[in-house]
């Protein structure tokens, strides 16, 4: 499945989930929950907003992996003694 098809499927499911809101009696805790598609739209908005916050954070707080070296494992290779690398045949 290509990513374009995947997104088309996702959009179809998203639309279906909103339409489903009209087909049953929603039991929410708050009045605003009864808006059709509320949970979805709120999740979408939250995802995008938190994503943008994270973007700002990344721009502000990214440093080179050696920043704390040598008192950090970030720039270290994981020691081979703790690994069992085996290449796949593929």
């Amino acid at each position, binding site marked *: 499945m290509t990513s374009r098809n995947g997104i088309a499927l996702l959009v179809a499911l*998203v639309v279906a989930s909103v339409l489903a809101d009209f087909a049953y009696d929603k039991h929410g805790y708050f009045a605003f929950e009864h808006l059709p598609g509320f949970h979805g739209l709120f*999740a979408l908005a*939250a995802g995008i907003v*938190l994503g943008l916050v994270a973007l700002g954070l990344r721009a502000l707080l990214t440093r080179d992996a050696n920043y704390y070296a040598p008192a950090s*494992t970030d720039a270290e290779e994981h020691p081979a003694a703790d690994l069992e*690398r085996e290449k796949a045949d593929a």
Partner: protein
Amino acid sequence: MPEFMTPALVYVVAALTLPLVPHGRWRQILIILTPFAGVAVFWGLPHGTYGNINLMGMHIGLMRVDALSYLFGLGFSLAVLVVAVYAWHVRDTIQQVAMLLYAGSALGAVFAADLVTLFIFWEGTAIASVFLIWARRTEGAYAAGMRYLIVQIGSGVILLAGIILFYRETGTVAFRAMELQSAATWAILLAFGIKCAFPLLHNWLHDAYPAATVTGTVILSAFTTKLAIYALARGFPGTEILIYIGIAMVLFPIAYALVENELRRVLTYALNSQLGFMVVGIGIGTPLALNGAIAHALSSIFYQALLFMSIGAVLFRTGTSKASDLGGLARQMPWTALFCIVGGLSIAALPATTGFVSKSLVLSAAGYGGLYLVWLVLIAANAAAVLHTSIRVPLSVFFGPDRGVRAKEAPSHMLVAMTLAAAVTIGIGIYPDPLYALLPNDVTYEPYTLSHLITQLQLVLFAALAFALLARAGFWSTPRHAILLDTDWLYRHLLSAGLGRLSAFVTALWRWTSLLIQRRLNVFLSGIYRTHGPQGVLARTWPTGSMVLWIAILLGTTLVLTYV
């Protein structure tokens, strides 16, 4: 059962015996059997306190069996079994002993009926677990372990101070629900908060866990923070401040989890956010909310372990767990990919997973309590978990662009461990009644209502859409060889840089002062030298004639003055 019994004793005996058993099958069997023997200690015991001792007037209870401790005891024991199977390949005695002592301490703390026993096992978990970090045997891991140990021991010391004050105030060390009304209980809450990774007390988690060995991270993820959740549920149920702390805790790590490159660190941020759900539940404090916090703590042990195990297996085979280095491994590690997806679905609280049946309890408790802002934050965090863990982690490792990494499927023992954790995750997700029946509060709750199913599915689908939209905008391209600064920068960089500057200033001041003193001393000494040195006026040798002349003058002057 003998009166001094506690499951911790079984683990300590196993840990002490283990080095005497040669590496190989017998040692592995000993490790696998330990959790069963541990469960046998408390299995089916009537509720009550066992192992009662009177210590200097304090009532010590080594093993309190009630609904809460029993449930955590079972959960921790099952987690030991899972991680022991996962660590089947480990031939490092230090890690094996540390694992048993760490898990035993966590169980000992869960069953402790008094604060003194709790303190001993609290410190036990700190000391034993640091060896899982040091077992990596690199300079970075040593430093990370030292930082971890300082924070954990600090938590223990604050706990001890709180216990002493509490004993002075109340005359008892019984570990039961407390009110936040004195320095004693605040200190105890702070100690619990450090271990629970409250916001700004959380750095040790993201610093130390990714620095441990492959199996060490999985073991660490299961116990320390869940023990803290247990302690909060026991000691501070219904404490309102925990709602606000929990809210901050749910939100704070999300941004980091979204953009961090090291996937084991992404999972620690995700874990931290999930801990927030539990803290909120404990803060709300209604029977439903407490049940939710406890159920979510137990369910998160397994789905988090599943995620950590799958990424651990990738690290084990490829030598890296950085998102920027991985991709397209699904064909080579299909089972690991599947288990990672199951863990991801559970953290997203998709129906048929433990995440759904446990998180719903907390969400419903917030809903029934009319806490709409709290509820909205929890929903937003749930959506974010879909982005940063459920989709991003499997996608960046097992799908996405192939970065040329070729690796065999995880070893069979790791797959067995992941199967166990996945079976718990899905089994309890489909049939939650056994978990609900064991929860301490008698509350009837039905997670699988049509309304709940559709709204949750809708939430996950829209969150997936948000992921796709962000992906289109190029959001997920993570810079390689980069780290993100967290608030530990304050003590790892600012404090050390500040101390460095202070030290340089003091050194310069000292040099300047000593130089000044030296110069003054030199001037003084050369003055003395001038007068008393070999060429000095006072060191000159005088001729006898001039001395006699001066004496005559002095005597003459005295004579004249006498008669004037």
